[in-house]
């Protein structure tokens, strides 16, 4: 549990340092505000909008870390992440060694924050295609459904993208196959014949708050030649795995696996 210094910020007068991006979420396959107004249950209210504002401010100002696991291996070598991934200063992409030397981005520092995520590449020493990554983000947007403001939500999820956008959490692993899990506010399904895909809504509780997200899990599943991918993906628990096996005897050649565990917030 991280403890922050108390602060007050005027920002743009809307609870954030700047005007939020407005998103027409009815263009997407899945969307939800942080208070749970979603594509399946789109009726909103002042109370639900207020609740989503409170939760969005909690994410923007107070998110500290995401706890997750990611492992990629060929059974003789391995790259992995296991534990808390912190939002750090300066924000942006960082390799493991650089990431480890950075300080956490405290809530006060976010008054001037213009880039809202950080993700880490822990180890790509074997190859660029043998890596694990994790993202924790504080990006939030204002959501509109059929022109009506319905509340605040997390950013967009790119389910099969190794470079996630400003959503709240992503974990990605690649070695032979690839897989990823994501939490965000809105997304489109991939609909790929070479992917095992799972999508749904997840309520994540932390510090007595309940945050509503779109969850996505994808894993490479194509077959062909002497190898095939044994893929699994689920949104609860939020996990995905893509195992590369030899066709003749099912022997594992490589294994990529990711799991999301929890979100942690600063307290005062």
């Amino acid at each position: 549990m991280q403890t922050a210094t108390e602060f007050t910020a005027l920002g743009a007068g809307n609870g954030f340092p700047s005007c939020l991006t407005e998103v027409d979420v009815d263009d997407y396959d899945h969307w939800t505000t942080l208070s749970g107004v979603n594509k399946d249950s789109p009726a909103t209210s002042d109370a639900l909008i207020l609740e989503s504002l409170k939760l969005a401010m909690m994410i923007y100002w107070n998110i500290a870390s995401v706890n997750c696991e990611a492992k990629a291996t060929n059974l003789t070598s391995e790259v992995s992440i296991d534990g808390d991934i912190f939002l750090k200063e300066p924000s942006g992409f960082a390799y493991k060694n650089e990431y480890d030397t950075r300080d956490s981005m405290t809530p006060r520092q976010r008054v001037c924050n213009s880039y809202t995520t950080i993700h880490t590449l822990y180890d790509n020493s074997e190859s660029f295609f043998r890596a694990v990554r994790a993202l924790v983000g504080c990006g939030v947007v204002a959501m509109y459904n059929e022109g009506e403001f319905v509340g605040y939500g997390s950013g967009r999820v790119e389910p099969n993208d190794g470079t996630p956008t400003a959503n709240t959490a992503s974990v990605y692993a690649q070695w032979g196959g690839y897989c990823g899990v994501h939490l965000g506010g809105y997304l489109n399904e991939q609909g790929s014949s070479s992917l095992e895909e799972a999508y749904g809504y997840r309520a994540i509780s932390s510090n007595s708050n309940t945050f509503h997200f779109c969850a996505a899990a994808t894993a490479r599943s194509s077959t062909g030649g002497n190898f095939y991918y044994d893929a699994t993906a689920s949104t609860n628990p939020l996990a995905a795995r893509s195992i590369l096996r030899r066709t003749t005897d099912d022997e594992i050649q490589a294994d990529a696996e990711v799991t999301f565990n929890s979100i942690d917030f600063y307290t005062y």
Partner: protein
Amino acid sequence: MAEKPNKTEQGRQKRAAEKSARAAATKGRRDSAAAAQERSEQRKGRNVDEGSAGRDASFARREANAGLTLAGNSTTSSGRGGSGPSFADREAAAGLYLAGNDTTSGRVASRATNPDFPPVGTPLGNDDFTATNNVGGGGGGGGLAGIEIIWADQTIEFIEAADLTDTYNDEAYWSLVLTVSSGSFDKTLTYDATPDIFTTTGTAPDEVQTKYRLRLITQYTNGDGDDVSTGISAYGQYREVTLCINGSPRQSLIKVT
């Protein structure tokens, strides 16, 4: 046939012409300076001779130019807040009124001629002052005799100065209280003597804001160790905003003019 001047003679004639032109220019600058000096002395004489009447006239002229003169709003007689004390009252309260030191008639002139004490004032040119008796009033500038609130829905509400302290009864603190409902002000206005800026229910992180207070009268400890309650320069225009306090929203007012 006239003799053609040689080069030496040509140079001499040219220099003479240039000298004549420089002399004419110098005389023109002297005439301008003399005129400016005359105008300056006329201004000084008006300040000294006209005394307080001249000062009031000067204020009235400046404020009329600024479009601030309204029927029934004599800023020089009762302060821009409308209910405040006179200049003499304020200066007496601030210890500025001494025998032989009629500051309202001579201060502008004396400041203007003392390089160690240059004139200072509001954008309108008025001398600054501390409105120690002017409960809830402005400290010069602003122009509003009350508080104007621009709500989140862009509607506007004006609260007259007299209403702000209508029920005040010498409490240590006095605030305009705005009620918060569903995350925004519901435009209900009351007054109370509670010093807290915000009132919330529940405990963090599930606190819910129910009230915001705009302080009108506050209390401080003066140099003698006495607790003193005094008005805050609160008149002006305010806008409803959402503040972030430790990552939680708080409805508030921010002064915009």
